[in-house]
């Protein structure tokens, strides 16, 4: 059981929780993830670590309320406990030796792009952060990005925040203007990462993509998180979650991510109704 120290709604569909977990906080590095279970009968949800505080012994997670599992998690409040919290899992982002980098985050993926940006910035890397959201009301971590990057580029699909367009447009503009990156790191929806990787491949820029496939144990046991990278089967939980973006079979990953769509839809509706009933009963 781990206590929720702080809960903050970053936008209507994204929540931040700071969780008490001293052992994990002691070890955590950007790029790694934890597995959380909100209740004793809840699913195991893998979430990438958004931040950690070694001295306070806390780990911050940021999640989008998309399905039944995240809805139940979001129903918990400050001071309450999550059933379990295990990690840190996966390999940390390799940041050593990078002199200049672009970090490209999309949507809730920015929650993961931020700690990497911060680590690069704090180690002295010139880091350009590009964050993309559908619209202004979905923006998260804007100030954090601004204060922990060498330059920050805001993009939105509808133009309500920053430049109107896609993250790939912004990245392309920077590359074409002569910016030379040792590495591009991208975290966000699969389709976005696919196009970021396709773009950087044209320019021959090394690109790392952070994958978030369906997972159960997170320790290499189930193989559910497998991906094809460079023609080889790799497990995101133990070999990743970050891989060479030019080697990832994104189409396959997108197909696999749809395995339980119909089940998830049913579950979401059911939990939605349950939570509504609970709220109704309380008022």
């Amino acid at each position: 059981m781990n206590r929720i120290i702080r809960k903050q709604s970053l936008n209507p569909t994204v929540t931040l929780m700071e969780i008490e977990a001293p052992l994990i906080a002691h070890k955590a590095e950007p790029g790694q993830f934890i597995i959380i279970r909100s209740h004793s009968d809840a699913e195991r949800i893998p979430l990438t670590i958004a931040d950690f505080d070694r001295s306070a012994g806390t780990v911050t997670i940021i999640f989008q309320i998309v399905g039944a599992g995240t809805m139940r998690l979001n129903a918990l409040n400050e001071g309450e406990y999550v059933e379990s919290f295990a990690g840190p899992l996966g390999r940390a982002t390799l940041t050593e030796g990078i002199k200049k980098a672009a970090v490209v985050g999309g949507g809730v993926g920015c929650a993961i792009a931020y700690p990497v940006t911060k680590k690069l910035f704090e180690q002295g890397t010139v880091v350009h952060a590009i964050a993309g959201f559908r619209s202004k009301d979905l923006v998260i971590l804007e100030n954090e990005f601004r204060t922990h990057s060498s330059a920050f580029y805001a993009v939105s699909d509808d133009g309500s925040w920053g430049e109107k367009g896609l993250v790939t447009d912004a990245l392309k503009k920077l590359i074409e203007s002569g910016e030379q990156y040792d590495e591009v790191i991208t975290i966000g929806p699969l389709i976005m990462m696919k196009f970021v990787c396709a773009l950087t491949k044209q320019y021959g820029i090394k690109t790392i993509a952070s994958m978030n496939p369906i997972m159960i144990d997170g320790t290499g046991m189930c193989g559910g998180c497998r991906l094809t990278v460079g023609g080889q089967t790799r497990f995101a939980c133990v070999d990743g979650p970050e891989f060479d973006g030019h080697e990832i079979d994104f189409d396959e990953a997108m197909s696999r991510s749809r395995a339980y769509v119909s089940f998830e839809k049913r579950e979401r509706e059911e939990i939605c109704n349950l939570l509504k009933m609970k709220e109704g009963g309380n008022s």
Partner: protein
Amino acid sequence: MAAREPNKHPMPTQEPSVRAHNFDEVALGYTAEIAAEEAQRCLNCKNKPCVQGCPVNIDIPAFIAQIRNNNPEGAYDVISKTSSLPAVCGRVCPQENQCEHECTLSVKLGLEPVGIGRLERFVADNHRLNSKTVPVRPAPNGHKVAVIGSGPSGLTCAGDLAKLGYSVTVFEALHTAGGVLVYGIPEFRLPKSIVAAEVEELKALGVEIFTNVIIGKTLTIDELLEQGYEAVFIGSGAGLPNFMGIPGESLCGVYSANEFLTRSNLMKAYLNDSRTPIMKGGKVAVVGGGNVAMDAARTALRLGAEKVTIVYRRSLEELPARKEEVEHAQEEGIEFRLLCNPTEILGYKNPDDPRDPKNGFVKGMRCIKMELGEPDERGRRRPVEIPGSDFELETDTVIIAIGTSPNPLIKDTTQGLEVNRRGGIVIDENCMTSRNGIYAGGDAVTGAATVISAMGAGKAAAKAIHTALT
């Protein structure tokens, strides 16, 4: 002397047509009357060949004698001297290759051996249901040992050390203790309440169990040693599932047996109100012939599959699964496609509609027929493809149960820990790894094997740790 019953007393079981639709235990266990009669079959031989056949050397004729004397608790005391998990072993041990294989009744007299496993289960169940005795916590001996993994080897090692007065802490990566007994072996073969009872028994002995701690990640072995643990036992199992390396293995609807069974067992997808998704119904093909393949096939059937087929590349004779499991699977209507090997898993793709929800899901499996050729290095006849014998098996789900490899998490974070080319941890005759004070046993050493051999390894390591620390 009256003529001995030539056959074991049959195990009362649920009717195949009924049990194929529920997750209740298949085998119901001997009644006291049947157990007493079966115990009469034991010759009580002086040289006790059965004991040699038992990886944890239970004094089998002695416990059977106690059943004959109508003293099942006395029988339990005999068993628990050497075995920590009798209710588990009585259910999942491959007795036909172990104790019962050596039984004089069959070796010398050509009769069926004594039903040792069934009697063991009777004794353990009787104890769990009727005994009010609480285990006595031994006086602490002042030594501290860490055990990694709460599967059969870890629990056995922990139990044996706790009985000697050690302060034992078990670290489990998942959220429930029991390892493969919880995530792998299904409810209908090993009810989880039994595993939980065995775990509680260990806790009563003073064993501390921390779940959700991944050694190699949350803490390293070196940190455990720094924290004052004088010895560490690695019983982390062989978790990493093997795949076949054929096209189509990443389609939706292809599972490793570990994933399929974990979803059903650990994550309780078999319960009607479960929050865990799993593909149910339709046609299911299971690749492999071990106990795990049987468990996956029978789980799929109970989840509502209309047809379940086991695809195995050798013949019935080479099937590595426990005999009883194969028989049960056959009775339940599971089809066996023997001498047959998959070459490709076929996916659905609608050329006219890229948004068709069926796109990317399994629709069939291409297989080729095999015949047995020359024996391989282990003496098993090697299966060879029959050219041109390809055929397509219609299926919606494919479960791959072709074995597992040791998990690299601990190896990667423990400097100087030697592993063999298959990733198994190398140990010496005292169960010690290449690092002083670090011991290992079970599947983490041998690769995928049986529950009882893992228990034997946990037992041997406990003995070695005790010798080293006192």
